[in-house]
């Protein structure tokens, strides 16, 4: 097969990678229509949107770059405290506070990224876990600043854009979180189809080969870890701002474990897994904790074991074929020219 015969197949194949799948469009139509169709549920929808963004953040390092973390709440919590403190002491404007929470968390991500470069999965799990525990204890000890175990009280946000007050029904909150989630998703999606994003997949699959084609592996890992931290910082800021409160449990091990669970439920490595997982997780949490308030983690644990044993792939195919169609779309088959046996 000659080069000119292959040219269209290559061009189409590369273009098809980032094309919007109809299922994606449907997904976002549903997400946005939920605002109007479920007016009584804005509070929980807001929580779902924030959890979804947090899960996208973990997906960027876990699903794309293959970095496991059991302490991702470090960034969520840091963003939450940064945004809450900023609103309380400096400026109550949500967008300025969001920027502040994001930038400071990004810095934390950059600094801690050097810790996850070395070692295998197990050392990474321990290090990320350790960093989160450390921050948790720090926030506990700095009671004068963070409110310690009582949480940070007295955070009052100014209206969004000077117009929309944060109401007790979560109307403003959900609109704010959902739009932010969408914008951050678009950025994540763009990154995932860039050559940088592809190089992360390469590192995840085989870092030895990645370096053998000229990829500076460590620099790419630093970059994505920092980017992921900024995503978690956005989620944390949203969380603190829309609840006008920050407490130690945003930094807890449970938060880190929950977001891992969300990705296990929804699947890692295609961005939508975090969002679908967040919806399922929150609904389950809501439902199970209404059923058995004290023991809902028992049921979540059971579900986790079942998912891992049965295999998420098979289950999601059984439950809804559509989930499968979201998954890493196999890049479009090459054009007819390429199909003919060469």
């Amino acid at each position, binding site marked *: 097969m000659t080069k000119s015969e292959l040219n269209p197949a*290559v061009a189409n194949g590369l273009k098809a990678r980032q094309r919007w799948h109809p299922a994606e469009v449907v997904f976002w139509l549903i997400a946005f229509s939920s605002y109007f169709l479920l007016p009584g549920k804005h509070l929980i929808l807001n929580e779902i949107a924030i959890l979804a963004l947090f899960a996208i953040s973990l997906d960027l390092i876990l699903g794309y770059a293959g970095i496991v973390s059991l302490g991702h709440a470090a960034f969520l919590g840091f963003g939450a405290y940064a945004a809450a403190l900023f609103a309380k002491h400096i400026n109550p404007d949500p967008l300025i506070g969001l920027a502040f929470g994001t930038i400071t968390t990004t810095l934390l991500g950059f600094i801690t990224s050097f810790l996850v470069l070395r070692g295998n999965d197990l050392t990474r799990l321990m290090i990320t876990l350790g960093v989160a525990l450390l921050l948790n204890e720090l926030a506990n000890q700095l009671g004068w600043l963070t409110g310690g175990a009582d949480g940070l009280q007295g955070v009052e946000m100014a209206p969004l854009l000077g117009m929309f007050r944060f109401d007790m029904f979560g109307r403003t909150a959900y609109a704010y979180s959902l739009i932010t989630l969408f914008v951050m998703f678009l950025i994540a999606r763009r990154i995932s189809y860039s050559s940088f994003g592809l190089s992360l997949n390469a590192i995840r699959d085989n870092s030895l080969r990645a370096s053998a084609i000229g*990829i500076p592996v460590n620099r790419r890992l630093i970059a994505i870890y920092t980017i992921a931290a900024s995503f978690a910082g956005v989620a944390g800021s949203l969380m603190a701002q829309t609840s006008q409160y920050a407490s130690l449990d945003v930094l807890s091990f449970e938060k880190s474990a929950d977001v891992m669970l969300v990705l296990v439920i929804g699947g890692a490595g295609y961005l939508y897994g975090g969002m679908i997982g967040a919806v399922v997780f929150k609904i389950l949490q809501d439902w199970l904790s209404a059923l058995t308030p004290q023991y809902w983690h028992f049921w979540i644990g059971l579900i986790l074991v079942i998912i891992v044993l049965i295999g998420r792939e098979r289950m999601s195919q059984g439950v809804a074929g559509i989930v499968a169609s979201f998954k890493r779309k196999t890049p479009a088959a090459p054009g007819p020219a390429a199909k003919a046996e060469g």
Partner: protein
Amino acid sequence: MATVLETVGLEKRFGGLVATSDFNFKLEGGERHALIGPNGAGKTTLINQLTGVLPPTAGKVLLMGEDITHLRPDQRVRRGLARTFQINQLFLQLTPLETIALAVTERMGHGNSWWRPVGSRAGITDEVAEIAGRFHLGDVLGEKTISLPYGRQRLLEIAVAFAARPRVLLLDEPAAGVPESERHDILAAVAELPREVTVLLIEHDMDLVFSFAERITVMVNGAQLTAGTVDEVSHDPRVRAVYLGEADHG
């Protein structure tokens, strides 16, 4: 022809085992050079040191006269030194299209670009098509690498290295483990590598080595047994004794 790749007193020890011992070796620009020796002679370990995967215990590696002994693997690739692996090292969840496009993008220096989609740059499509055609991967471009037959994976293994447009290409047993029926494609692709690429080939098939190489280096127990033209080496009784004897039952 100028020397493109050179080792000076290279030595590698794994604990008590000497895997490379005072190895002095030169690759001349554009030549076809074969590195042969029985299993465990230290050929792969040598490649690992040349490419920066393993640090040598002593000695130097020079590329175009520059000391690259302390450079990272990716830095060496960007200076024109690429390799393939004896055991496939591929991106199993990616497609050959993505793999080759990524390698080309990295070589062009755009790998860091986190905003522009892969393939949105001029020239990438042409080059990926050229490489896919050269290595007979045109009909499987969109399939996941993990699902490719082994022979195709071996071709991709070379294609990825070639996509770095190296000046020096080190091929570590490119046809290893490939069934007889599929060997031809791989060997043909190796034979058709452009002349401006200097090639070092590790291979056990003597017929292939003699037809491909201009010069041969023989390695035994980490040391250089002899080096010379195909004629010289093939008539060297020590080579026949050590290597060819071993190959018969290895």
